[in-house]
């Protein structure tokens, strides 16, 4: 507390431009799916990415963020995009493919070759770092 800030400085806004998923975050929380946020969407975003938000809620929105094509499944293409964003495309194609296969192998419980929300949550709630890293501070 004691950090009531009403105006963003330019640096603060710049600061979040390093997040590889910034576009996705905006899209996942905006109502039109294109990153144009209403005030309520914005509030939504910060409520989910606050420290106080429960794990399941965070997991739900994390799924939305990683689901690049909005088809309610994280498919291989989504995974590849994620890896490339995380590593700034420094892995070779083979490596990326292998990582994606491993991920699907680990998480896909119903064996349909893509991750559903259930699969994702099953995996993410066990991750030790998820809660400590999946939040944003202004």
């Amino acid at each position, binding site marked *: *507390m004691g950090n009531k800030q009403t105006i963003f400085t330019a640096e603060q806004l710049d600061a979040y431009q390093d997040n590889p998923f910034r576009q996705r975050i905006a899209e996942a929380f905006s109502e039109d799916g294109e990153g144009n946020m209403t005030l309520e969407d914005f509030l939504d975003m910060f*409520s989910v990415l606050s420290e106080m938000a*429960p794990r399941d809620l965070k997991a739900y929105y994390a799924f939305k963020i990683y689901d690049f094509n909005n088809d309610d499944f994280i498919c291989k293409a989504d995974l590849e995009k994620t890896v490339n964003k995380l590593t700034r495309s420094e892995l070779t194609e083979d490596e990326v493919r292998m990582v994606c296969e491993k991920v699907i192998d680990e998480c896909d419980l119903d064996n349909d070759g893509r991750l559903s929300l259930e699969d994702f949550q099953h995996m993410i709630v066990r991750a030790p770092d998820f809660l400590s890293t999946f939040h944003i501070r202004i």
Partner: protein
Amino acid sequence: MPRAGLITAENNSDIDLEFTGDEDEVSTFQEELERGRHRGRRRDGDREKKKRGNRRRKGASKETVEGEEESQNRLEKRERRRKRAKRHQEARGRERDEEEQAKIKSGKKAKTRKKVKNEKTRKVEEKEEEEGEAGERNAKGKMKHGGAKREEKKEDGGKHTVKEKAQEVKKKKHKTVVETSSEEEMSEEANEDNEEEEKELRPESLSPEELENLKEAVDERKKLIQSLRGKPWPMKKKLVTLRESQEFVEKYEGALGKGKGRRLYAYKVMMSKKWMKFQRDFENFKTVCIPWEMKIKEIESHFGSSVASYFIFLRWMYGINMILFGLTFGLVMVPEALMGRPYGSISRKTVPRAEEASAMDFAVLWDCGGYAQYSVLFYGYYNSQRAIGWLKFRMPLSYFLVGVGTVAYSYMVVIRTMARNSNESGGGDDNSFNFSWKMFTSWDYLIGNPETADNKFASITTSFKEAILEEQESHKDDNIHLTRFLRVLANFLVLCCLAGSGYLIYFVVRRSQKFALDGLDTHTWWERNEVNMVMSLLGMFCPMLFDVISALENYHPRVALQWQLGRIFALFLGNLYTFIIALMDEINLKREEEMIIKYNISMWEASFYNSSVSGNSTAPPVIIQPADVPRGPCWETMVGQEFVRLIISDTMTTYITLLIGDFLRAVLVRFLNYCWCWDLEAGFPSYSEFDVSGNVLSLIFNQGMIWMGAFYAPCLPALNVLRLHVSMYLQCWAVMCCNVPQERVFKASGSNNFYMAMLLVILFLSTLPAIYTIVTIPPSFDCGPFSGKKRMFDVIAETLESDFPAWFGKVFSSASNPGLVLPFILLMVLAIYYLQSTSKSYKEVNVELKKKLQAQNEENKKKNKRAALKAQTDLEEARNATSQTAQQQQETDGDEKHASRQRLHHGTTGHNPPPPDHERRPLATRAPVPRPYHHDNHGTPGYLPGFSQQSEPRLYRVPSLQRH
């Protein structure tokens, strides 16, 4: 006024609550008649109520809740509806009476839900009307309710308040709407709805069963309010639902109380709300009171969570030291300073004549000699007087108990924290999601600094590459012999380092004893402070050496880090223990010296006595200045002094290394870079990284020294508080100004307990020598609170003897005889063994369950595979028929899970239709009471209405429940 009538109506409804059957019918009928009679008057009442509302609105409280426009709209709507309702009422008045009579004749007990609803709502309405008539008192109470509610709302959705604020800004001009009035409006509105409904459906009785239902509904709403934050709904829906539920609860909570108990019930509700508000405020207050929160968060955003974890640890340590300081300061130092004998009264409280000249030297500040030595800061100053001051404060006892309490408290805190940490991180240890976790949780969303982000990208990439390598197991151990040889060599070198540093410390301590025997004044500053300086320097340079050596070993970085930590730990521990052993030697020396001095003193006293006796037996004995009285060396003070010096020099070296190693280096790199032949920033010296593990280790060891020395120097916790306070600011500044983020960030969360375990080990190892000295070495004869006793802990027995009644001492002594103590110890051992074995078996069960789960998962996978295969064949067939139907089938895939999931996604991703009932509600003609109830039951056949709240971990099901 219609008051009388209304009250009777209320009474009737109360009867309704308690009885069922025909009487209900009669009562409702009477009520209806009465109502008809008073209808005209009631209209007046309504008008008045409205006026009152307006007045209240004008009486503008500061909290604006909703935009004025919104409420205005609602007002208009309500007015329109009210007019319509009244028209209806009048038109239907006569019909209704007839109907009522018919109803009574038939004597049928209606059980349709709507009627019940109607009855309930009417009752509440009446209650509210009564409240309205009853005047200001109730209104006030209500206002309070409103306030509390509003608070709750604020908390419930932190965002809610934000929104409110936004509106506030927009509509500052219309700041006249009082929140309570707006809420009242809502309820009035609801009343209108009810009235409308009344004519359509005839009011019926309220059986206990239905009361139960109502209660359930209220509970359900309450639960909903609580769990609202965890629902993946858009904010709009959350707000609407929250508001509705709160209204609902507000309105019907009161209805549940019966008859006379109602007011009490309302009072209770009010109090509980106030209590909640208070708790919330208190929580906020506590959050505000957390020190350095903003600093740490800023660092967190620049350097990621691992560096921040160091500062959080530092803060935690600061808290512990604060408490230790409070204990020693409040129970030992202050009483002695205030109530004990003043300085100069006796020899132990006076600077000896020989040192008087140098007692005020500047060097006292770090040597802690001179006046500092003969003050409350050290053991020797305390008097052995049993009780001091008018409070009869038992000084020696207090001293002893504080010493024990410090250690006990530290143990308790550390172990409790460890247990909590292990609870939090429990279960996250299996490695089955290695890649997934790397992919989905490795990005630290907190990072808000381009440099850190670059490093993070790099480290993620390398971690992926490493994982791939490990996975492929193409880890070519091409020259395993060389690696082995190098590792053995490295360990040998490290061992040499450790032994060397140990010997160096021992040597230096022995040398310093020689210096001390010669007298300190003849030596230079370096010779006097050699021990501490050598220890600090070793602590500074050896880790660097280890770092270089570990490059030989070619370990995986995480393993290397562990080795490094282990080695530094061993180094510090070795140094500390060498120091203690040397100190023990010194203690023994001092005790021999003490023996001699004691003998001399007795001789001196005897001679003095003899001389005075022989001179003139009647002359008053010559008064000797306390400064001149010969005294023993007081080894306790010496130990305390050593520790204080150690802490001071350690602090100084830490700060100086910080300034030179970090700040100066950063300045040089920054400014020499303009005129240098290679890039200093990117090349060799570059900026320093923040070394989390090293810093944590030095913090832990510092704390260990505090624990060790605190018994002999009560000022140590105070000193440590000071040190931690300064280093908090200094290190925060240094990190922000001259460090760069680490290239390889290791998980901080996993190693938290690792550090705690280290702290526990250090705590144990540092209390060990302290306890040993307390128990085995007899205290000095002429200084400290225990002087004159054989052992320090004798103070307990003394207290038992003289301060407690005789029977207590007897009980205690009989309880402490071996016959009782041994079985007790045996029992404890057995209990420990039992607990340990049960925990072991639990662990085994856990592992078993985990295995089972995995097996089940595998089975599911297989099953699904089969199902998928089957579906695929079906698909093929279907594709032959038509391509379109085939596509549809693919989506429903024969797998039930998919179907449900699809449903779910319909619900959650389509933002457009928020639940129909919430949106349409103001227009609805039915009473709002049991609607959600209704709706839930309708929406999800087979699901219990409360199910969604209970299934917390499967939250994603909620939307599908709520939406349909």
